[in-house]
Every structure is written in C-alpha cells, then in structure tokens.
C-alpha cells in the first residue's frame, strides 16, 4: 500500500513541483498518473523510490516512511520496487541477460537461480532469443522490455513506470502495455505516469490527474480527460 499525506516538494531552485498531494494506492491496483509536463507527475513518482525526498508531508510504502529512511537503507527500498524509465536506463555495455541478472546479483541471489529466473523473465517479455544482445543492438521497444524484465525479475510488490512508452511507437507501446497488464494480473501494483491519451482511454484503469502539483481528479476506470 502506498500512501501520500499532504506531500509538498519544492526543489532547490525554488520550483514547486508538488503542493499538498494526498492519495492512497491499494495493493494490486493499476494506476495512471496523467497531467501536462510540469504538473508534478515525475516528482510524484520519484518520491516513491527515494530519488527525491518530500519537502513536507509523508510518503509511506507498506507503512515505511520512505522519505525518511537512512542512506544505507535506500538500496533495500529500491530492491523492493521495480522502476521503469522513459529512457530505459540499461547498462550500455552489458547484454540484455546481464542487465536483468544485475538486479539479482545485487541481492546476492545464488547463481543457478539467477540463470533460471533471468531466462524465465526474458521469455516472459519475449526476448529470450536476444539475451546476448547489448542495448545498442536492440530496438527501443526491445530495450524497454529488457528494462521491464529487470524491474520484475525480483518479484517486486510494486512496479513504477515513468512514461515508459514516451519514446516508443504506438505498436510497441501496446506490447509494453500488455506486459504491464500481465504483471498487474499477478497481483503487483502498477503505477504509471503517461502522456498517452490513447492508452489511458483504451485500457481503462484508475486515473490520477495532476495539475500544478496537485491532484485534481482521481477516478476509477477514468479517462485521460484533457487536450494535450
């Protein structure tokens, strides 16, 4: 369960990204976070994996105040959440396999289990045959699928995606969405910031709409709702 309580975020340069966000996401939900650029979507997401900390208010994940954890606890928080980025953030010199395996090496999983699990997840995202390719040899959609594989390889309870289809063409985007739905079907909470009206209006889920750092709309099976 993710809870935000009157969260404010003001950056060092004085920009106010969030002003008084209160919301709650139950386990197993699928939530879109929509809004124009600068509305606070990214800050909203970054607070959850301690890339940013709230200036005021509380962000709790399973009752842990993640804005207030010690530096050395940050890696443990991140291991429990799978994060997917618009620019994939794959390690460029490692193969698809190595990128996914990295998330398990970090938690010192035993090598045999790593091998089995990585191939299993790569199979799930349809890239088993490209395990030995490095990111530069893969298309954008394929890279994003590797990133998803890395995010879910550790069976996290929460998957967070920051505009995961932002750099992809429509066909590829649908493929990515199918994988997210599958992930959600296994009980994983999925939170996805997006700009895609088409996706939000087609695959209907809960929508949290943001404007000027505040939640202006929160509806189940909601619509994208405004002009870009």
């Amino acid at each position, binding site marked *: 369960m993710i809870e935000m309580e009157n969260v404010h975020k003001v950056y060092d340069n004085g920009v106010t990204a969030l002003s008084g966000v209160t919301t709650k996401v139950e386990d197993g939900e699928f939530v879109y976070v929509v809004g124009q650029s600068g509305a606070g979507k990214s800050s909203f997401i970054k607070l959850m*994996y301690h*890339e940013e900390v709230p200036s005021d208010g509380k962000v709790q994940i399973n009752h842990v105040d993640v804005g207030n954890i010690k530096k*050395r606890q*940050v*890696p*443990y*928080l*991140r*291991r429990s959440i799978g*994060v997917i980025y618009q620019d994939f*953030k*794959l*390690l*460029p*010199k490692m193969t698809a396999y190595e990128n996914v395996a*990295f*998330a398990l*090496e*970090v*938690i*010192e999983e*035993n*090598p045999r289990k790593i091998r089995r699990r990585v191939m299993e997840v790569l199979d799930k995202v349809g890239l088993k045959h490209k395990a030995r390719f490095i990111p530069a040899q893969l298309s954008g959609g394929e890279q994003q699928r590797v990133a998803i594989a*890395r995010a879910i390889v550790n069976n996290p309870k929460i998957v967070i995606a920051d505009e995961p289809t932002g750099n992809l063409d429509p066909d590829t985007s649908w493929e990515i969405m199918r994988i997210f739905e599958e992930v959600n079907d296994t009980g994983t909470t999925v939170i996805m910031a997006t700009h895609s009206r088409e996706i939000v209006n087609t695959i209907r889920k809960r929508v949290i709409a943001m404007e000027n750092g505040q939640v202006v709309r929160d509806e189940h099976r909601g619509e994208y709702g405004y002009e870009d």
Partner: protein
Amino acid sequence: MKISTLKRHVREGAKNLIRNSWMTVAAVGAVTTTLVLVAAFLILILNLNQIAENIESDAEIRAFLELNTSDEEVESVGNEIEGISQVTNYQFSSKEEELENLIDDLGEEGESWELFEQDNPLNHVYVIQTEEAEDLSPVADQIGQIDKVESVEYGSETVDRLLQFNQYARYIGIGFIAALLLTAIFLISNTIKMTINARSEEIGIMRLVGAKNSFIRGPFFVEGLLTGVIGSIIPVTAVLVGYHFLYVNLNDRLNFQFIELLPWNPFAWQLSLMLLGIGAFIGIWGSVMSVRKFLRI
C-alpha cells in the same frame, strides 16, 4: 559477501579492463613506468645502504703507542681501552706483527722492508672496534687522551662523510619514491576517471537498481588490483633479469672488498615481491579513489 558475489566482482572487473582496453593500457603503463623507476631507486638505495653498512662495520680505530712504551705500560693502556663502554672489541698488535703485515701486504716490494726487522721503526698498535660507527669519533678522542698513546687513526673523514652521504641518500631516495607513488596513484585515478565520466551514468543506474556502494566498488577494486599486477610484470621481469646481469658484471669489476652488491638471490626476489605489492596497492588505490566521487551522493 558471498563467494558467488566475489566471483561476480572478479568477472566484472576483468570484463571492465577488456571493455575499456585503451584505458587499461594507459593505467597499466603508468604502473609499469612508476615501478621501473621505483625499482631503480630501490636497487640504488638498498645497495648504497649495504655498502655503507659494510664499511661501517669494517671501520676501526688504530691507536699508535709511543715507541718507548714498556710492556707494563702497554697492558695498562689496554686496560683503559677496555674500560670505555662503547668498545666492543680490541686487539693488541705488536710492532713485529705490524711489520709482518706490512711486508705481506706489499708483496714482492715488501721484501726490502725485511731489513727493518733488525731495527723496527713501527709502533705498537691497538685495533679497536665499536658497536656503532657513530661512536668511532668520540671513542677515538677518548683514546687519544690516554697516556703513552701517540696518535689515533680511524679514517674519520671517510667514515663521517660516508655516514652523512648515506643518510642523505636515504632521505632523498625515500622522498623520491613517495613522490613517485603519489604521482602514479594520481595518474591511474585520472586515467580511470577519464572513462568513469562515461561510467558515472552506469553507476547511477546501478544505484537505481538497488546496488549498495560496496557492490559497485567491488569490480573497481578487482580492476585496480589487476591493473597493478599486470603493470608489475615488466618491472619484475626487468629486476630479475637486469639485476642478475648487473650483479654478475658489476661485482667482478668492482672487486673491492668493501663494495659488494646485495646477492641476486634473495634480493631480486624480495624486490620483485615488493614491486608486486606496490603495484597492487597503487592500482587499487587509484581505482577505488576514482569511483569515490560518484558514490558520495
């Protein structure tokens, strides 16, 4: 840390060396150059040290007694010398023995000195050793005061100068080696930093995936260690081969009793081990220092 993680770090560290091959060449080059210089300095300093020590331990005081000294007086002088605390050893050498030694030392020419056996112009001599070369001068002064001692000799100039030179050589050499090592660490860390700017993004990604700093540092440690070890291959080979050559050639030519180089075995091996250790140390330090900045956030 689990064994499998250790293996992983070794694997990744080795891969990084291959992935950044030109950087590896530069870093290994820096280690190699440094170690060759360090080796040259160490060979020089340690041998100088050895030579100085030989001379120091050979150094002795010769106290010449007056010609008309009686046997009783000889004995009383001996007693007084024995009473000086820094004296470790002393021997009496009568004028007859002195003449014999002189004749022996001079070889064929010495035969002409045999005439003097009738009327020996030499003095009785006491030969005195001290524990420390530094004690030679005060002890010699003290002996000079003793009644019936005509003069003392201990090669004061030579010994004093040598002691001083050796002291300076040691300081300068150690200073030079320290400077070299610092330069090498700086060079290596800078070389690795050149590629690390590209790698800083990777480090950021690793952190986002939940890697702890120690985990990120692991491969860098291995990378540094390997850089150091590879960098010491040429210097170690050069020492083992070169010092053998030096030892064989120079020792024959410098066939003085007091100038003797440290023997190839074990010195060359000890030095090699030392170089390997220094190489590994500067490699690791340079490498780990280069990531520090990116792990501090």
